[in-house]
């Protein structure tokens, strides 16, 4: 009974703190603009099965991809076990999902094996960060905070798996005459170690579930929030062709007005700012992308501008967006302003103009973030609100306006190529 009460109190604290974090983020989301409508649920489900559950984009780097995929699939089965632990804890039961029979055996056996695999891979991931110098884990946006964030999250996951194994080992030892579920790794440990390991069951159980509770509340402040947000982010992804850049509706109205002077002007409509200057101008999807981003750097790794030494790093755009929202969000909620903005105080014009919109970053992103569209949204602000395009681009604009071509040629000469 005491155990039950203690457990319910810990669960309540966990949910309470988590709800507070969600409320804070919700208020930030309310500052953002609408995004594309979420339609085609069928296509979205199959896209999610492919990219999220099938890990197809992760496998674009096959070796590390397989390790990630095994950790991800392991997490899925282990999560079922965690739900069981919560139900057991609240109602004072033991192995309450055992009634599912072969399914239970399958889930427990996979969880037990995955736990060991995950420990091995997590150790490899951690060493990869501390020993190997991998270029995509460096960059101005990768602070030491980001490094420790990764190491802390990896340690959490490692300890979660160790405690799960300890719990399983203790449970098997305490039930010499038969137990629920199948545990290949833990049973092997029990057989190998000739000691009574029954005492591991209770501490293993508690440490495992309490770590989950703490980890869950650490995540909303970590780049490892992707544990929660990457699957929804893939589900809500932009399914249009990568190079389709949405038209601005507010401009369509203005252009129609210009071409047809008789069209009525609706004065009741608020004149919106064109493009993105600060966090209030981004869409909710842009902000969600920034929260879901794991900072893996696959985007920056393939960016032609970054490869050739330019300032642009697609990852930095989204790291900056999240940072700026942490700074501006609480101020903006109060209706105040700090005189700073995402543009210039975080992201420079030099970065924005270096993008070739080749979409290598968006193609690579394992959770379908669209970097070029946000970069172009910021260019829209620069050009349409400040007329701050590089001089050569202004020349190109003038040429299109005057001659209908980006170069200075007369439309009268449009058939010259046929003349030879």
């Amino acid at each position, binding site marked *: 009974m005491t155990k039950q009460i203690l457990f319910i109190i810990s669960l309540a604290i966990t949910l309470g703190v988590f709800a507070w974090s969600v409320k804070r983020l919700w208020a930030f989301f309310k500052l953002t603009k609408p995004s594309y409508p979420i339609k085609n649920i069928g296509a979205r489900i199959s896209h999610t099965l492919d990219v999220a559950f099938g890990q197809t984009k992760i496998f674009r780097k096959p070796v590390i991809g397989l390790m990630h995929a095994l950790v991800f699939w392991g997490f899925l089965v282990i999560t079922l076990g965690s739900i069981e632990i919560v139900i057991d804890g609240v109602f004072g039961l033991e192995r309450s999902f055992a009634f599912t029979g072969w399914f239970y055996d399958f889930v427990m056996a996979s969880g037990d094996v995955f736990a060991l695999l995950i420990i091995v891979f997590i150790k490899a991931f951690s060493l990869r960060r501390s020993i190997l110098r991998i270029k995509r884990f460096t960059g101005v946006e990768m602070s030491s905070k980001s490094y420790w964030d990764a190491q802390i999250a990896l340690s959490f996951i490692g300890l979660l798996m160790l405690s799960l194994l300890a719990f399983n080992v203790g449970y098997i030892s305490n039930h010499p005459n038969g137990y629920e579920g199948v545990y290949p790794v833990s049973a092997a440990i029990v057989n190998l170690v000739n000691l009574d390991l029954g005492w591991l069951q209770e501490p293993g159980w508690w440490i495992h579930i309490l770590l989950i509770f703490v980890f869950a509340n650490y995540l909303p402040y970590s780049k490892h929030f992707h544990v929660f947000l990457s699957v929804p982010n893939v589900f809500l992804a932009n399914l249009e062709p990568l190079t389709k850049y949405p038209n601005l509706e507010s401009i369509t109205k203005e252009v129609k007005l210009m071409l047809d002077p008789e069209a009525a002007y609706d004065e009741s409509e608020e004149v919106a700012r064109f493009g993105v200057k600060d966090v209030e101008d981004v869409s909710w999807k842009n902000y969600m992308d920034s929260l879901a981003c794991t900072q893996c750097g696959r985007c920056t790794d393939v960016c*032609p501008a970054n490869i*050739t030494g330019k300032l642009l790093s697609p990852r930095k755009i989204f790291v900056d967006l999240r940072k700026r929202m942490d700074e501006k969000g609480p101020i903006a909620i109060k209706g105040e302003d700090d005189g700073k903005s995402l543009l210039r105080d975080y992201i420079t014009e030099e970065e924005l103009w270096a993008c070739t919109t*080749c979409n290598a970053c968006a193609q690579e992103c394992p959770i379908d973030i669209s970097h070029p569209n946000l970069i172009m949204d910021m260019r829209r602000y620069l050009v*349409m609100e400040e007329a701050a395009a590089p001089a050569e681009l202004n020349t190109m*604009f003038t040429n299109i306006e005057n001659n209908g*071509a980006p170069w200075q040629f007369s439309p009268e*000469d449009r058939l010259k190529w046929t003349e*030879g």
Partner: protein
Amino acid sequence: MTDKKLHVPVMADLAAKGEKPEYLYWVGCAGAFDDRYQKVARAFAKILNHLEISYAVLGKEESCTGDAAKRAGNEMLFQMQAMQNIEVLNAYEVDKIICTCPHCYNTLKNEYPELGGNYNVINYTEFLDEMIQDGKLKLENNPFKGESITYHDPCYLGRGNKIYDAPRNVVKAVFGDVKELKRSRSFGLCCGAGGAQMFKEAEKGDKEVNIERTEEIIERKVDKVASACPFCMTMLTDGIKLKNKESELQNLDVAEIIEKALEL
């Protein structure tokens, strides 16, 4: 150019005669004005003539799709261009449009519909591939016998619109084989000119993007590199020149390969 004048039907002339062609060939600004890409426009028009396709161009009535303006942030200018073009296209009741430029293709196909321009937009590599598959385009000669070729994926064709196989099929129909680059298909490296970069100097860095790409092509040790985009054409041609490899490596457009194979 030493070639003689090409017969290229113009939409307005056909309309005056009460005729309506099956296809509109959207030449694009590069096809109309860029010295190097004019040759590609000529090559493609010759192929259309050879196949006796019913087509026309807009000629003086064609105007920039607005792609570069849009990617550079000038949505106002883009939409002005789009609305004007759509007005012209709709007045001629255009249905099928063939584009050589993948930037024009992407804009017409993906960004015009919401502004009232709904057409069946076809990329010329898809068109050529289909003509070969259907047996309408017969390629018996290989003027490049003994030469090897690689293919550089234009971003707006490949990653943007998932057209990877059509251009390769066309090149293979003549060369028999395409040697793949280290970074190809969806992993392809940009030439450096997309997103309005074509019209400005690059930002400060260690290297130009087209040099990075050209070096990769040179490493592949091929005689030819095929591409299917006017911007890629410019960037790779410049890269090859800068690397002093013009005698060993030439840049050809997919349409030019067919033109040469057909001896047009």
